[in-house]
């Protein structure tokens, strides 16, 4: 049994068939996990200034770029092991660098509040064993974390929910479109207009307090009645909800207070995003967007989007592809600064990078520890042998070279 690094569910019941030091077949993984475990189609090669080079030179050149930079930034981290992330934080401290990860434009807002204990939360195993009402809010778990419904939330039978989805559980979807998750929720799908989450939350709070809500009163009262009856509920907060209320995120706190039997679960995409958030929170008290300058300073200026527009003069990307995931308006700024890319595969970012350093695929060619979306620590296993250095070793070498 090995652990799948496909998404933040970190399924640890995977079997792999290895032949000639290659993964020939994966069993029990979803399609996303199977693709991740079978490795990349185009393996990254070490290069300096777009020309092939050896890895030692690439690391030396990367160290030189970082050393010459006045304001370097370290970005990525959500697809690295906890050990590599800790090494990265030390590297950032040493260089007085800006540090940010993909949670900056993902679930950072929610995870920060969960770590500050502003929301009640639970583990995915608690949900499997106890939950009777599940709310997928702005989240298409069926497509983003394919085994979420079958392994932890809706379909399985649990200790207190022996009849599973057939009788013991109710799944509710609140979304702007009829996603695949909403199709499974069938009778309990509440469609809202884009950016309509705030209005929906206010109306739901009215309905829970016994007032007649202004927004779709009949449906809201019906939903409030289901939520009130829940013995153990879970609200799966997806990116849809986080993006919609990002300017006033604390509006979720009074709603959570009105639902004492409910727990909040962040729907994280990258497999170790929460690991990085927890590590940085422990070190600095913030989950992302930090500049180390003697002490850690947290500011929205240090988010990858803002920093690229203004202040940085070198970028180290570890296991991420900002070129394909950032807004188009900030992409041109990537061309103006030297980019160092540490990744197992060829990505759009690696194609424009000044230095590329290939690394081993975590969870396949190298082990390590990771943190699941609910905060449980899960160990990744090594399935096949590889000559590639892992993220941690590369960062340690960079540190030495500096």
């Amino acid at each position, binding site marked *: 049994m090995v652990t799948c690094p496909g998404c933040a569910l970190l399924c640890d019941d*995977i079997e792999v068939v290895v032949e000639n030091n290659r993964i020939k077949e994966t069993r029990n*993984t979803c399609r*996303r*996990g199977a693709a991740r475990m079978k490795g990349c189609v185009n393996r990254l090669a070490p290069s300096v200034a777009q020309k092939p080079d050896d890895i030692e030179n690439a690391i030396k050149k990367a160290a030189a770029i970082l050393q010459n930079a006045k304001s370097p930034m370290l970005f990525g981290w959500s697809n690295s092991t906890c050990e590599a992330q800790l090494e990265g934080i030390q590297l950032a401290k040493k260089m007085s660098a800006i540090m940010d990860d993909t949670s900056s434009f993902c679930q950072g807002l929610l995870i920060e509040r969960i770590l500050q204990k502003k929301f009640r939360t639970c583990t995915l195993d608690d949900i499997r064993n106890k939950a009777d009402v599940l709310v997928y809010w702005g989240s298409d778990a*069926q497509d983003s974390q*394919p*085994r979420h419904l*079958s*392994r932890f939330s809706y379909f*399985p039978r649990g200790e207190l929910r022996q009849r599973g989805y057939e009788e013991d559980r109710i799944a509710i979807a609140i979304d702007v479109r009829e996603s695949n998750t909403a199709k499974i929720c069938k009778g309990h799908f509440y469609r809202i207009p884009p950016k309509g989450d705030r209005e929906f939350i206010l109306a739901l709070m009215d309905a829970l307090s016994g007032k007649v809500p202004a927004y779709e009163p009949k449906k809201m009262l019906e939903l409030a009645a289901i939520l009130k009856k829940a013995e153990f509920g879970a609200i799966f907060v997806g990116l849809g909800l986080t993006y919609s209320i990002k300017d006033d995120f604390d509006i979720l706190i009074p709603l959570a207070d009105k639902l004492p039997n409910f727990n909040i679960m962040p729907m994280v995409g990258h497999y170790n995003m929460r690991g990085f958030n927890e590590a940085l929170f422990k070190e600095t008290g913030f989950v992302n967007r930090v500049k180390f300058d003697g002490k850690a300073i947290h500011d929205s200026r240090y988010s990858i989007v803002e920093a690229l527009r203004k202040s940085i003069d070198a970028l180290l990307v570890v296991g991420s592809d900002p070129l394909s995931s950032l807004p188009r308006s900030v992409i041109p700024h990537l061309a103006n600064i030297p980019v160092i890319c540490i990744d197992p595969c060829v990505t759009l970012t690696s194609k424009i990078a000044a230095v590329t350093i290939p690394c081993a695929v975590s969870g396949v060619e190298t082990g390590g520890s990771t943190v699941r979306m609910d905060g449980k620590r899960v160990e990744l296993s090594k399935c096949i042998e590889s000559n590639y250095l892992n993220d941690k070793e590369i960062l340690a070498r960079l540190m030495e070279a500096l």
Partner: protein
Amino acid sequence: MVTVMELYRLLPGTNCKKCGESTCMAFAVALLSRKKNIPECIPILLENFKKQKEKLELLLLPSAGAEETGMIIHPELCTGCGNCVVACPVDVANDPRGAAVGCAPTNDKVIFKVKDGKVVALNIKECRRFGKNRVLCYACIDPCPAGAIEFV
């Protein structure tokens, strides 16, 4: 999905009984449930029924790869989520500590397993749609929003 009437309209309609069935309608029903094959209808093999025969073959093409119970899995649509593995009542009964609680199947008695991110059907004779006491079970179709499982 193709209906009995669609098949019946393409048959000769002579009720000649050469196929062993009492009427062409009975033969259409047998065709749909894959108990009979098109060449068993002798008159349709004649030249003047060539077009009808081709149409029939076209209509029955989707069910060509079906299992004995009529199950077809479309691997190109499957996301490997495993909802069917956990929802199937046979899997639950045969593997109460594995598939039933959402984990990987722990034995080979289950009907569904996921390999390389796509579901495959095993032990098809265990399916509740098979055998004398068959029932019209939808447990694997309902939880699949991708529509990767179909019965013909």
